[in-house]
């Protein structure tokens, strides 16, 4: 019994059609792609959610496009400040650490990523990015489907870990239960004194029987059982890990430090999900977004220093995403409203660095928003097929060309 998320369609008055039994369920048992290079079994994906809708135009700044400054008289990044990538675009000046990694060839930036008929709602668009299903409500996440298909050991409680307060939809699987561990502190039971109580506890909480019916009973019993066993196992598995990397004292810094520790331990984790934000900058955008981009950039630098020290940098791919970019024109509050396409960043020793995709035009807008040039499912398919060496069929619905993002 895996956790299923609250279906938007089911609670919102059924406005979105639900595909009762999607093809995903049937495709779970597909074999690995033949003929791909080996080593995929110890590869790790770290997914960073830039939650709230990151303004892509002030992240990868199209400083070579004059229209940009016409649309953004007060919040536009001046050409002088941009960390130039080529004559047309450059990074936000707060991303110096990431720029250095880009120059070293370990950052790929995909421009103009989005999907057809973009939704401007945080919640629906987040759901679309997390499930990779723009056209209907899907109850599993794209990484959940990968986890289900990857034949991971059922006894491992840490096949994937969400460094987040709640389970992200991307990790909702049918077979694999993913623990949420926002921090090590607080991940454990306080009452360890009496062994008798401990034993009674573990058998009582995992007993799904009760003299009443409840749709949540099995879920509660499973999570209590996993939480108890997981919190006993994890500290043992990651004990003794040391690093010289200096992480910034920020939430994303702490999350990435924990991620590196998990990667460097015996947990055999395949996927780690990290939360960063909020990027929902409707007002006074500059201060907030600049800070968040700097924290991300500096955090990733420390993360890869740490991984490299332990020889894990090549087998760890980090990928960012955000539910949408933001409106091209700034609003009256020196912020931006919900928009459409935005850039994705892929970082790691296994990445073929550089700029990919075409930067969307600022002369040909969709009702004030840039039009996407790369479908996000192309990037996802690349990760599934080229990084994890699994067929994307059954994981990503539809057929999308992969991109040469990986070395």
């Amino acid at each position, binding site marked *: 019994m895996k956790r299923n*998320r*609250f*279906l938007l*369609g*089911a*609670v*919102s*008055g059924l*406005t979105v059609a*639900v595909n*009762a*039994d999607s093809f995903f369920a049937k495709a779970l048992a597909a074999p690995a792609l033949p003929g791909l290079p080996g080593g995929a079994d110890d590869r790790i994906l770290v997914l960073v959610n830039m939650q709230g809708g990151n303004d892509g135009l002030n992240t990868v700044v199209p400083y070579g496009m004059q229209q940009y400054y016409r649309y953004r008289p007060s919040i536009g990044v001046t050409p002088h400040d941009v960390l130039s990538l080529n004559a047309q675009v450059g990074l936000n000046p707060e991303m110096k650490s990431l720029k250095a990694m880009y120059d070293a060839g370990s950052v790929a930036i995909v421009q103009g990523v989005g999907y057809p008929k973009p939704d*401007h709602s945080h919640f*629906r668009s987040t759901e679309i990015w997390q499930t990779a299903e723009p056209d209907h409500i899907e*109850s599993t996440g794209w990484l959940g489907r990968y986890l289900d298909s990857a034949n991971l050991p059922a006894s491992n409680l840490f096949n994937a870990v969400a460094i987040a*307060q*709640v*389970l992200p939809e991307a990790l909702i699987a049918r077979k694999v239960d993913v*623990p*949420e*561990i926002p921090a090590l502190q*607080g*991940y454990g*039971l*306080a*009452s360890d004194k*009496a062994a*008798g*109580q401990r034993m*009674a*506890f573990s*058998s*009582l*909480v995992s*007993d*799904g*029987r*009760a*003299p*009443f*019916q*409840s*749709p*949540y*009973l099995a879920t*509660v*019993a499973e*999570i*209590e059982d996993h*939480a108890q066993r997981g*919190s006993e196992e994890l500290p043992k598995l990651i004990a003794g890990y040391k690093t010289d990397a200096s992480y910034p004292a920020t939430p994303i810094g702490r999350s990435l430090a924990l991620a590196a520790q998990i990667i460097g331990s015996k947990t055999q984790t395949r996927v780690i999900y990290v939360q960063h934000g*909020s990027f929902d900058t*409707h*007002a006074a955008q500059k201060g907030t977004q600049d800070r968040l981009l700097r924290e991300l950039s500096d955090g990733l630098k420390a993360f890869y220093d740490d991984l490299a020290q332990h020889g894990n940098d090549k087998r760890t791919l980090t990928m960012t995403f955000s539910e949408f970019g933001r409106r091209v024109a*700034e*609003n*009256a*509050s020196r*912020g931006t*409203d919900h928009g459409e396409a935005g850039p994705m960043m892929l970082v790691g020793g296994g990445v073929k660095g550089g700029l990919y995709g075409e930067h969307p035009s600022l002369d040909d807008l969709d009702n004030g928003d840039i039009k996407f040039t790369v479908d996000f499912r192309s990037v996802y398919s690349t990760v599934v097929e080229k990084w994890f060496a699994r067929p994307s069929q059954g994981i990503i619905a539809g057929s999308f060309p992969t991109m040469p993002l990986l070395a």
Partner: protein
Amino acid sequence: MTGSTNTPYRPAGTLSISTALQPYEGPWNKRLAAHLLRRAGFGGSPEEIDRVAATSMNAAVDALIHYPKDTGLPGQPSEMDPQYAQEVALAFQARSRAVDDATVQMQRMQIQQSRQKANLSTIGWWLDRMINSPAPLQEKMTLLWHGHFTSAMFQKGITPKEMVDQNWLFRSNALGNVREITHAVSRDPAMLKYLDNARSNKDHPNENYARELMELFTLGIGNYTENDIRESARAFTGYSVYGPLRGGAFYFNPKIHDDGNKAFLNARGPLDGDQVVDCIFRQPAASRWFAQKFLNFFVYNEPEPQLIDAVAEQIKKNDFQIGPVMSILLRSNVFYSDRAYRALVKSPVEFVVGTQKLFGLKEVTPQAIGALNRMGQVPFHPPSVKGWDGGATWLNSQTVLARENFLNFTVTYATQQMKSATMSASAWMPMTPSLSTKDTTLKLVDAILQGDAAPASMAKLQAYLEGNDSSALGQLSGENFEERMRGAAYLSMAMPAYQLN
């Protein structure tokens, strides 16, 4: 929309739609009394549950709905700093006058300290009301509205006072008219700041409030277009808030309001925000939106479309007046059905407040607020404009451990309070070893779970009470007995049933 894979948390069995909203006429007992108190309030002590079980269902619901106007509780947080907003404004002024760094630094620290004091005192103020109010349904509805029409303290410069004012808007209209609540929310300073409407002007309308008003507050996705959002944002320009030094109240600023013609849903003309709200409430989707909200909050998750329609019909019939709708719902067959019984997951607030009520612990401790934070629900701090997702999302390894650790703390704390005789309400917790282990087990499971434990679990609990050497409770030393009782109470609450509402 059928098929169990897509509605995994809809209860098993079949809905009888023709009788679902008819008044329940079956037997009235302790389990149903506790169910009503948990859903329409925050639970109660075993003594309270017994009292309600001894009346009738109708009397119990009447008492909840016709609640006393005067609760005798403080109307404002005792330590909410009334100077807070002014302090912030003055500090900003000081900074712009370019005073030296040390002074600015000191002012920052003072602001930080007064923020934290006001924060804890404001959260504690509301939790105190939830625990001690003689009008629990009023507080429960206030919590529902707070999670629905969300704003968050300290975000976008929202002060504790503004959150408390908004909280009173919900409390005063707890069972009132939701269209009127929406009108009031559209002029509420905390809301206008939270969703960036306070500075929206006709040259560059800010769409944040206009979007969430329809997407989350009233209609749901699919019942309007992107163009409707843009038109609504124009209508709401000029719905502004004075700065803190000018009192911080709502005002309409005609100078920045767009008074041009708009085409919003099926309305045309130079619409303003209030006309937009009226137009929204003429849409059939509005009554359905609130129907699913109430069913998910009070009855069970993923309710059937027919049930949503039936409740929506009642909402329309009562012209969005919520009191009469709640009166029908809390007396209905579906509410007391096996399908609704323990079919919801306790929210952290329900879990913490309910546990305190169970033990008769009237005071809010800092530990309770810390626990709520780890469980993922701190009043006045919703994680996003969507509020709290609820349901299965309450439960994960992190939050479940926080729940268990709060129970462990509470049991220890409660026994200390009982020993120092500052508390008498927990008479249900056997404190002398005169009962047999079997009777003690029955008593605990009855008080904590209204008997909702499987025979196998009862046997395990009894085995724990007996210990490894099968010693009877009476043979334990006083200290060991107490530890054993604490452990057994904790274990009873650790059973999955206790997580369910």
